[in-house]
């Protein structure tokens, strides 16, 4: 009984988090702000889901496969977000590094600045 209630509460929290994140994705003004809403969706909600399945099934095979899938989502999510923001920046500014105002557009800077 208590286990079922705990699973229901955790699942409800995960679903509410996902719904709120997707509404946030839609409501934000630009892509930089939207990427921030990927984090709760791809990092916190999978962890809640894994905990719910762990509470429901214990250390069964389904739990281990679930944690394997969710581990991929949780570990790769931040890398994907970083790559997305980098791509947006390169599309907008031509390169991802911040250009100082004192540098002329043709100034190559020091050799260590080169990618």
């Amino acid at each position, binding site marked *: 009984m208590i286990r*079922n209630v705990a*699973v*229901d509460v955790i*699942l*409800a929290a*995960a*679903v509410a988090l*996902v*719904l709120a*994140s*997707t*509404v946030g*994705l*839609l409501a934000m003004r630009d*892509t930089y702000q*939207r*990427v921030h*809403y*990927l984090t709760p*969706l*791809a990092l916190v*909600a*999978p962890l809640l*889901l894994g905990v*719910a*399945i762990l509470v*429901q*099934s214990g250390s*069964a*095979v*389904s739990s281990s*496969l*679930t944690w*394997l*899938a*969710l581990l*991929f*989502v949780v570990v*790769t*999510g931040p*890398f*994907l*977000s970083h*790559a*997305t923001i*980098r*791509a*947006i920046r*390169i*599309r907008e500014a031509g390169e991802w590094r911040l250009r100082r105002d004192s540098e002329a557009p043709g100034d190559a800077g020091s050799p260590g600045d080169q990618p």
Partner: protein
Amino acid sequence: MNAFVVAAIAMLVAIVPCGILLLRGTIMDAVVAYEAITAIAVMVLILLAEGFRRSGEFELPVLLAVLMFGSGLVFVRLLERWL
């Protein structure tokens, strides 16, 4: 219908705002929406496999999670320079 299936259906509703963003936003907005949809799809597949007690179907979200990372990087890399 248990709590896991209900949660899967509720999570599928979350794809609707992502679909609107995918259709109406810029191309980079669409990439962000695609990443959100794939993360939701992984969770929905896990919830359905647990809800219907089919342990063999837990392999599908594992595969999708791996492919999500690779495909996301390919999209982002292409959009960064060439599209």
